[in-house]
Structures are given as C-alpha cells and as structure tokens.
C-alpha cells in the first residue's frame, strides 16, 4: 500500500503526517497528529462528532480520505482559543449550559463556527439547519441552539441573545428565562 505524506495547515500551523489510502482525516488528526478534539461517534458520516473545518467549510472528517486534503487548511476545536480567551461560540456554550457529556460538543462548535462565519445573524431555523448533521443525545438541542444564537449576538457586538425572528414555535430562549414559580417545560 502506498503511504503518502499529507501536508496541511492545521489551526494556522504547518503540519505533515503519513497516510495510507484508507486513512481518514479523522484518524490522521487523532492518531498521527495527536489532535483528539474531533471525536469518532460512528465513523460513517452520521453523527457529526468528527466535524472539522476544511478550507473553512464543515466536513465530517471520518469520511474524508486524508490523502485528498494535502495542501488544505484544517481547523479543529483546539485552534479556537489560546486557552485563556475562548471564542464567542465556546463562551456561549459554556455560559448557556449547552454541554452535558461533551462528546458532541467539539463537532457542534465547529459547525456553529462555520455557520457564523458565513452568516453572522442566523435565524433559529438557520441554526437548526446548520447543526442538523450533528447528533446530541444528551441535551435535547435547545440549549445548543440558544447558545449559538447568543454567540452570534456576541460576535455582532451586542451582549445578549436577540429574540430570534421566526414564526415557528416559541423562541428557545424562553425556556431558560427565570420566571415566577416553576415552569413545566424545563
């Protein structure tokens, strides 16, 4: 089997690793480069846990043959912050309790980063569409959607999440607003 050297710019740094024809970008990142942020949930393109940015676009890295990304730019969750200051999406996930077990979180965050790069002011529907390839079995998605809308507002320079303009159902932020007494929906 031919082993090829794959060069890429990973989170802004030049990297190279060896790949066989069957090596996926996910396994290259994890096993060759030691970048464990992207997760393997299914290895068949169904769960989104392995989402990374390939030349700026979100891809499921478990389905990308590593040899095809030679010369590309790859972004993973590890590249989003220096460990001191979090990205707006990361901070919004943290503040919004948008993680439980955390296994879907890196992929979810990368899908959100890609969305906000191309659309700084998404509607709830657009957020739902953007994360429709990311499975979360723990949260029920509502806090994730709220956090992404919140991150969009932070990136635009407004401090709080705007009420999403959608006529579909109640805005998800309401479930997290404190209210007098108890609510049945949380």
């Amino acid at each position, binding site marked *: 089997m031919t082993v090829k050297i794959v060069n890429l710019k990973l989170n802004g740094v030049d990297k190279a690793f060896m790949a066989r024809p*069957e090596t996926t970008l996910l396994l290259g990142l*994890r*096993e060759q480069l*030691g970048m*464990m*942020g*992207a*997760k*393997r*949930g*299914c*290895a*068949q393109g*169904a*769960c989104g*846990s392995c989402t990374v940015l390939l030349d700026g676009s979100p891809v499921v890295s478990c389905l990308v043959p590593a040899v095809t990304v030679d010369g590309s730019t790859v972004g*993973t*969750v*590890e590249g*989003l*912050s220096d*460990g001191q200051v*979090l990205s707006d999406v*990361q*901070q919004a*996930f*943290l*503040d*919004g*309790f948008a*993680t*439980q*077990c*955390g*296994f*879907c*979180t*890196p992929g979810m*965050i990368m899908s959100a980063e890609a969305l906000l790069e191309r659309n700084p002011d998404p509607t709830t529907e657009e957020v739902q569409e953007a994360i429709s390839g990311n*499975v*979360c*079995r*723990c949260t029920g998605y509502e*806090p994730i959607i709220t956090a992404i809308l*919140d991150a969009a507002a932070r990136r635009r320079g407004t401090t*709080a999440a705007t009420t999403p303009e959608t006529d579909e159902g109640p805005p998800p932020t309401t479930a*997290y*607003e*404190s*209210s*007098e*007494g*108890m*609510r*049945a929906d*949380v």
Partner: protein
Amino acid sequence: MAKINEIDTEFFADERSSSFTVIGTPAQRSDALGHVTGKTEFFEDRAFPDLAHVKIHRSVHHHARIDSVDCSEALKVPGVLRVITHHDVPANWYLVLRLIGVEPHDEPVLAEDRVLYVGEPIVAVVADTEAAAIEGASRVKVSYTELPAVLDVEEALSPDAPVIKKDGTNYFVYEGHHARRIRFGDVEEGFAQADHVFEWRYSSAPIEHAPTETTGCIVVPQSGNRLLIHSNTQAAFFTLDNTALILDRPFTDLQVKGGTVGGGFGGKVDVIVEPLACIAATLTNRPVKFVYSREEEMQVSSPRAAERIYIKDGVMADGRIVARKVMLYVDSGAYSRHTPYGTTKAAAHLPGPYTIPNVHADCHCVYTNRTPSSAMRGFGVTIADFAIESQMDRIARALDIDPLELRLRNAYRDGDMKAHRKVASGTALIEVIQRAAALVGHDLPPEYLAMSSSTPREA
C-alpha cells in the same frame, strides 16, 4: 445566559432542614470548560503506537447449537495476532449482579456450545489494525444447528415453549417463585365488591440508549502483571470487580480509569468490553482497544427491556380503587444482565403512588432469544408508570371523573399501609397535583383543594 427556575419552598417548610443555597442558583459544571475546548479526555483520546484492536465474530442465529468453530482462516489474515475463544476466558460464566448476591451465573463471556441471540459473541480476534481485526472476525467459520427460538415473553412462559436456558426455566427464579410477587389483601374479594372492573394491556418496545460515544475501552499492560483499563463505563468499581472475577485474578491486578462518559443513560453499566480487552492485552502484551462500532452499539448493546403489563382494577362508582391486579412481563432477552433487578424495581413501584387495599402482582423476568436488556434511566419503573398512569386516565374517562380528582381520591398519604407492608411517609402526591393544577389553570373543587398528604384519609 442560562437561568434556573426558582425552587418552590412553600410546601412542607417545617419538615425541611436544607437551606437550598446551591439548588436554585447557577453553578458552572466542572467539566464544561474541557468540553468546549476539546480538552476533555474520553477513553479513546489517547494514542499508543503499538495499539492492537479487538473485533468479534457474532452469532447469526436467534438460537442455535454450535457444532464447530474454525478460526484457521482468521489466523491467516495479515496483522491478526490471536483469536480468543471461551477456552481463553478463565471464568467464562458470569452475572454482573453477583456483586449483590444474585445467582445463577447465566451468561458466557464468549459462547460455548450454544448461542441464544443474534449478535452473541463467539470469537474475539486481536489484530494490529482495526481493519485486520474486522477482516479476521469475518473469516471465522461457525457451523450451527438451528434451534427453535422464543421471541415473545408470554410464549416463553407457556408450558410447551422450548426451554432456552441451561438453568431449566425461561424465567428468573425469585426465592423459589416464578415471579417477584406482591400479595396484599384479597383482590378477588375486592373485584367482587367493586362497582366496575377494568382490565387493559400495555406494552413497550426495547429502547436503545444510542450514546454518541460508543461503548469501549483501552487496556494497557503495566509492570508487575497489572492492567490499566481506560474505560467509558458508568460504573468503574463495578466493572473492576466483575472483570477481575471473570479473569480470576485479584482485584489489585486491575486499575480502572474512567469517569468521562460520552453519554451512558444506563447503557454503559454492563461489563462487556473490558474482560475481553484485558484477556487480549494479557495474551499479546500490548495495549488493546475494544470499542463497539455504531452498528454494534445499536444491535448488540443491551437496550431498555420491552415490557408487557396487564392491569385489572376493581373501582367503586366514586372512583375509589379497591383492588389492583398486575401481571407484568419484562423481556430480559437471552441473559439476565441487570433485568432481574429491574423487575424487582417494577414490583417495588406497584401499585403506583395510590393506596389500594387489595393488591396482587406477579412481575416476571422472562428470557427470550432477543438481545439481552439491561439498565436504562429508571428501568423497571418508567414503563410501569406509563401503564399505571394510562390506566388511571382510562378509568377516569370510563367513569367520567376528572383525571386529577381520580388521582387525588386514591393518592397515598402519610401513615397509609402500602402493599409492601411499609408505612408511607414523606408523601407529596396530593400537593404536587394541586400545584400542577393551579399552574395550568385547572380548577379543582374545594374538597380536593383541602386535601393534604399529612391528613389521614377518612375511612
């Protein structure tokens, strides 16, 4: 920003010693920063240059005798290091609940002369790469003689059903009985004196937890024969003890590193991957990973048990339930796992939070040729509740009584004798219903608003 609902402190203020200073205020999860930065270390997030992989050859039949197993082709696959059969498992028969004294050991780690469900593990293949392990596992040849399968809980208990278990019955034996039983008062007398008798049947399908991270572990040989197990088990010590018993080695030989679980929901409480990975690591003296594929997670990891429940109630015209008879069947699948315990929980939950003078229940833990079921979020209780509360709604509809009033009329109160012969205390069903009714704007008549859990019921 996340906000939290207020805690309602209005009720039982005099009974409470806690100040609730933590509950009701936002507190950052200690693991969330790791989650959002990708630094949280799941079991698989470590690389070993010489990591070997385990894959399994599984049964293709619901029920069959194994006539022969041929691993010679598997061993020819480049990269395959070993095959593991039941001969390599020191104490092959086990039951995870043995740690709390439950018997018999009814499940083999690897099948011996029989398979009892589709997907039952027969041979484990250890290889240099995942691909070689998959290839090797696919080349194991098993010849079978198919046997009649039992796929329904009630059929499994019929006298002419084939007995699928080596211990002689298609049900778990509870202290000499065919079921976990409740006998309280006399239900037949209750039915005779009732104005109405209602009987309905409820059933549920198995439910897969489908955690986003599949079940798995990496076992790394240490100096002095010790094994370090990186696992995503929900129960580190439970796993350690059961694994040591299966390996027939002292507990001190094993160290389990866990605690980070990519979704469990009860599905990562069985002890399935660790024993085989330990055996593979010992035989090859290499770090070994055994992790379920998504397909295995969906197909062979144990789901929530399917249940079938018949409830027969004797009810007076005013809605008082005077007798409740429950026939409950839990589908344990081919092996026990946690289901004998789940079935006991179902029994402990009957007849629901209601005071009923005559109760009779038989809760069966039944073996069938289906995927073994096990723990999942409130197992035993959840489906029983679905049945009980559906039953309450149907009675209310049949008698044209408000469903909340029907529940309030029958709600247990402090001091009531429960069917398990324990005196009820700390009850709060009445107050919860009253509050829920107020929140949704459901008006209750004054006599129902005046009810209280701490006031003894009028005879």
